[in-house]
């Protein structure tokens, strides 16, 4: 294959390309199912049983149960699909993003108020 994959060299960033999409197909489609209120209720009632209805890998299922979003991203999850999980949990995009950076929600919110994470780190916030 000769596709340009230079986007894979950006630190702390996973581009949702063909390889990730193939790896994450069932994980992401599970996430889509949470757009229906009845499915959200069934998932909340017994998360493991609901996950076992999907052709996901065990590692993906454990990632969902642990709400380990970085792990799920590396296993083919896309953030707009994973958003259905944290929406089901009543969590905001900002609180989920904070967990991916290893910061508390307060620390992350403070970083955003100070102008966010600059690509060159010039305002004191970490580059990655």
């Amino acid at each position, binding site marked *: 294959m000769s596709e340009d994959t*230079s*986007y894979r060299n*950006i*630190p*702390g*960033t*996973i*581009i*949702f*390309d*063909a390889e990730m*999409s193939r790896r994450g*197909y069932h994980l*992401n*489609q599970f*996430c*889509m199912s*949470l*757009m*229906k*209120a009845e499915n*959200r209720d069934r998932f909340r009632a017994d998360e493991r049983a609901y996950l076992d209805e999907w052709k996901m890998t065990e590692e993906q299922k454990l990632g969902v149960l642990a709400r380990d*979003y*970085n792990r799920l*991203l590396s296993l083919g999850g*896309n*953030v*707009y*699909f994973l*958003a*259905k999980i944290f*929406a*089901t949990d*009543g969590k*905001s*995009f*900002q609180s989920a*993003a*904070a967990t*991916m*950076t*290893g910061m508390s929600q307060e620390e*992350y919110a403070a*970083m*955003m*108020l100070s*102008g*966010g*994470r*600059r*690509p060159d780190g010039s305002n004191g*916030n970490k*580059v*990655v």
Partner: protein
Amino acid sequence: MARITAGVSTSHVPAIGAALDLGKSAEPYWAPVFQGFDFSKRWIAEEKPDVVFLVYNDHASAFSLDLIPTFAIGCGEEFKPADEGFGARPVPVVHGHPELAWHITQSVIQDDFDLTIVNKMDVDHGLTVPLSLMFGQPDAWPCKVIPFAVNVVQYPPPSGARCYALGKAIGKAIRSFDQDLNVQIWGTGGMSHQLQGPRAGLINQEFDNKFLDLLINDPEAAARIPHIDYVREAGSEGIELVMWLIMRGALEANVDLLHRFYHVPASNTAVGHLILKNGG
């Protein structure tokens, strides 16, 4: 004939919609964001567009991994607000303009842009937040809206150059529609932001402001920015900015800048907003 009177660009951050829906727009965190649209609301109340051609992206709401159209045009009579995981936003149903949408579809496909035709889809915050920012909270949206969804979720998204050229074809199509309509074209999404991974929270004010400058004065140069530059400089979700180039492509080379606004942050995102009068 139909006239394209103006182009509007704006970010479409979901938290902005939530702030408005929950009555938080006057709070200190959100007030500066909404103040950036005070002029815009007054302006559009006088402009009274008949139709808004609204370029946005779906965020795994109408389109799952089952079907991923690169460019999809809404030709239906109406489009309902999507349930994105916490219930649909309490905003009016969007009414389309099937006659103009089909005219654009035919013209643009015959100009070699292979659109996907959609008669039924729900529209998410990508489309409804810009409507809320520009029109506030009316009981019904005051104009028809043609939704135009661009894939920027699954790599590869269309290039900026392709979006800009498509915008030109859309502009030509609208101007050849045989009804006296006041049409605006909106490009939404961006500006710099990254919602995922250890680099989440990325903001790049220099990139964003340079992009605004180029979009207004040198759109050909803006259209040459490659995918990798958006991702590296403006974050993985900053790629949404290619949708602004569709708006700009539909306008004439010369435009008159009526309003420019930039604010950091809204949740994870840099908010940018332009109003460009067509023809300068």
